[in-house]
């Protein structure tokens, strides 16, 4: 057995001892490793100190985790003989054999041809892709407005990004202010599970979205193998976002992780991401991350921020400073150094033209570099089905054109949450609510009474966005909303 290195046993907010499932054994390149049912392969490997998950096919550079939510393909490994499995969203199973990949896969010469079956077919009124705050609120409201709802998510649990947010939310009471993200996820999940007209499919990736006669067809794959055809009269895409990468030397070294991935490691699975961390980006995500790392007993060496001032809320920044973490504005990361994984980070001050100033380099001995440099909307399915797309930097990149009820340029296809434009969980929930009701109205299961609910949610959105942090988003929204 490899030594158990990285599991968190004590945490001020979370209790992992209680949460962990049955102890099982998996095999990494022949070596037995302890794992717990309910965790993903990558988490079990990381807990055992394994950071290098494979090697790139051309230059054989080491590869490690990056997004931890199935969106970047940095964690591909061979699992039970099947190559290129996304190990960050695949759950461990007893006796599983896991191998690193170095070259492109070689096919076994003798394999029985598969039996070609009809796909499993599931029908409902509204199919919702993504079970984060947007998708969950869409499901609850569409269901209450009379629709039979199908909800799918490729992760093994509902809640999206909320499941890793251990901090308390801002905002109004009805928007869960003062409640921790994880708790909001639990409340919403309970609401969803209470409703009989919502059917949930986890570990199910939507891989294709099509118009099929009068209906929409969502092609899904469950647990990497089972094909399912979901049909509905309307579809709501709430697929969230994916972390941005920035260019610097060594940015592909294992140990350069997205902020969300680090949260997944420590807050969802109780695995320590490393011992010493440098954070890049002082927006809210970077600041909250710093705090959460400290809570988990990790040493945060510094936060670097390219802008002249901190982007996140003042209270968060003040808290971090009180804990003694330096926030270096007008600084950027120059390179990550290390043999097979991050061992050091070199940062430097930059001038007005974003060029590094020679002589200002600082070296930090860290084993993790956390990138909190923003997100971009996950619009792949919307793009593929043919929705009109526009580049709007204020919303994080390419987004879909939509109306104020979240309907895209294709009738019956709605969007909500981060996939409609990067914002926050609070707005994602409100957009989800609007999309859920609007879809139910469109397919005719909801009475016109429900229009009022949409108006109410729209008003709340306006209020929320009226603050100083909403200005940029409002600029962006002006560019994508049409009537």
């Amino acid at each position, binding site marked *: 057995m490899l030594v158990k290195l990285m599991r968190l046993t004590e945490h001020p907010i979370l209790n992992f001892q209680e949460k962990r499932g049955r102890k099982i054994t998996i095999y990494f390149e022949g070596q037995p490793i302890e794992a717990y049912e309910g965790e993903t392969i990558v988490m079990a490997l990381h807990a055992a100190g394994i950071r290098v998950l494979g090697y790139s*096919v051309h230059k054989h550079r080491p590869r490690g985790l990056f997004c931890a939510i199935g969106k970047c393909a940095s964690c591909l490994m061979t699992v039970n003989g*099947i190559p290129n499995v996304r190990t960050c969203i695949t759950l461990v199973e007893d006796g599983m054999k896991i191998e690193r990949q170095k070259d*492109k896969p*070689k*096919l076994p*010469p003798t394999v029985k*041809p*598969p039996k*070609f079956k009809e796909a499993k077919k599931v029908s409902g009124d509204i199919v919702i892709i993504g079970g984060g705050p947007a998708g969950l609120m869409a499901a609850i409201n569409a269901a209450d407005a009379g629709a039979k709802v199908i909800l799918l998510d490729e992760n093994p649990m509902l809640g999206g990004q909320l499941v890793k947010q251990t901090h308390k939310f801002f905002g109004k009471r009805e928007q869960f202010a003062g409640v921790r993200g994880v708790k909001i996820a639990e409340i919403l999940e309970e609401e969803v599970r209470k409703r009989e007209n919502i059917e949930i499919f986890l570990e199910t990736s939507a891989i*294709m979205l099509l118009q099929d006669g009068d209906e929409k067809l969502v092609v899904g794959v469950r647990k990497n193998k089972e094909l399912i055809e979901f049909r509905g009269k309307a579809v709501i895409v709430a697929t969230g976002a994916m972390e941005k990468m920035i260019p610097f030397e060594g940015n592909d070294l294992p140990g350069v992780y997205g902020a969300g991935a680090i949260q997944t490691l420590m807050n969802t699975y109780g695995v320590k991401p490393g011992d010493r961390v440098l954070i890049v980006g002082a927006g809210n995500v970077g600041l909250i991350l710093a705090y959460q790392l400290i809570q988990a007993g990790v040493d945060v060496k510094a936060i670097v921020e390219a802008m002249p001032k901190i982007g996140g809320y003042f209270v968060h920044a003040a808290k971090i400073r009180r804990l003694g973490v330096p926030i270096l504005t007008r600084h950027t990361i120059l390179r990550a150094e290390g043999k097979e994984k991050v061992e050091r980070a070199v940062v430097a001050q930059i001038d007005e033209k974003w060029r590094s100033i020679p002589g200002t380099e600082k070296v930090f001995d860290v084993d993790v570099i956390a990138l909190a440099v923003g997100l971009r909307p996950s619009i792949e399915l919307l793009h593929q089905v043919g929705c009109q797309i526009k580049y709007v930097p204020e919303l994080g990149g390419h987004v879909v054109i939509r109306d104020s009820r979240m309907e895209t340029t294709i009738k019956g296809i709605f969007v909500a949450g981060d996939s409609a434009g990067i914002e926050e969980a609070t707005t994602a929930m409100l957009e989800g609510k609007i999309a859920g009701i609007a879809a139910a109205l469109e397919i005719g299961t909801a009475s016109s009474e429900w229009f009022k609910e949409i108006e109410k949610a729209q008003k709340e959105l306006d209020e929320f966005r009226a603050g100083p942090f909403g200005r940029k988003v409002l600029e962006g929204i002006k560019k994508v909303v049409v009537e």
Partner: protein
Amino acid sequence: MKSRAEVVIIGGGVIGLSIAYHLGKLGVEDVVVLEKNYIGSGSTFRCASGIRAQFTDEANIKLQKYNIERWKRLSDELEHDINFKQSGYLFLATSEEEVEVFKKNIKLQNKFGVPTRLISMDEAKEIVPPLNTEPFLAGAWNPEDGKASPFHVVYGFAKKAKEFGVEIYEYTPAVDIIVENCEIKGVKTERGMIKTETVVNAANAWAPVVNEMAGLKRDFVPIKPYKHQLVKTEPIAEGQIEPLTCPPAWNDSYVIQDGEDGGVICGTGLEKLTHLDDVQPTYDFIREVLKWATKIIPALKYVHVVRQWAGFYAKTPDKNPAIGKINYIDGFYIAAGFSGHGFMMAPGVGEAIAELIVKGKSKVPLDWDWYDPHRFERGELRSAAFQIG
């Protein structure tokens, strides 16, 4: 943009660019290629990259035997690596009757110097290690067939053509051809007029529209767009499914590893007559093609599909292209209607048309009679060219 040109080629696919390159090479100055979108955007970038001499009639076998000789030298000629590989075509027979047909075809191919032979399934397994040998009796194998990168071929032709002085105007559709007294006067484009006396219609699926611009009947060369699709998997190690591997009896389904990244391209004979704007991939195709692909190579069940796309087979009634001079209008030439096998023909067809324009004849072994664009109005059809996919 030029206001005058010696030759205007309408269509910037592999055929139009090959013609342009060969005209430049022959020293013709002022050649212009008009492409309504970007070069390669028609069928060329959507093809399966296969190159074969395994046809079932004399004209196509001879032309393709010659073309393979051209492909072999093309990287050197263009000073650009087009990734041509003689990785072969392997056809697989599922019944005794098919084996007999294979034998007959092989005899004809051998007669014209194409070294196809009948091979056992043991040998086939050596060539394609993950092949499911059980359903098949024998294979027809020509190791000289192969593949090349459509992207590098288009780029290589265009680059070299430009070195010869050819001008390529992208996003510049031809909208009209000015003809007076059966003579060409010029081509009108969305960006202005180009005076010329010679025009080549290399618009493949769109060729009937271009013929109409010149005042011909739309179905003078009756080319129809049939939607064909492909899927491609994530890269796998090279050397596993290098040849185009196809049991024709299984709905013409085929698999072939991309010569550049090793991803497996899979096709099947699910075609649909459609309109010129419809390149929408469909779900029924992906289901159908994977059913066959995993029967040919069962281990493909472990590999993820990463892309799917559609393009046109620009089909004539006898699945042979129309290549040559159009006698009604002086200076009007056509090379179109390639019916799903135009990529492989590009070097020789480009050379032949260029020589025809410049010298009135060509040394390319291209049977002008066989491909005569006037054959349709005469009600003559050739025996259908062997189409796959």
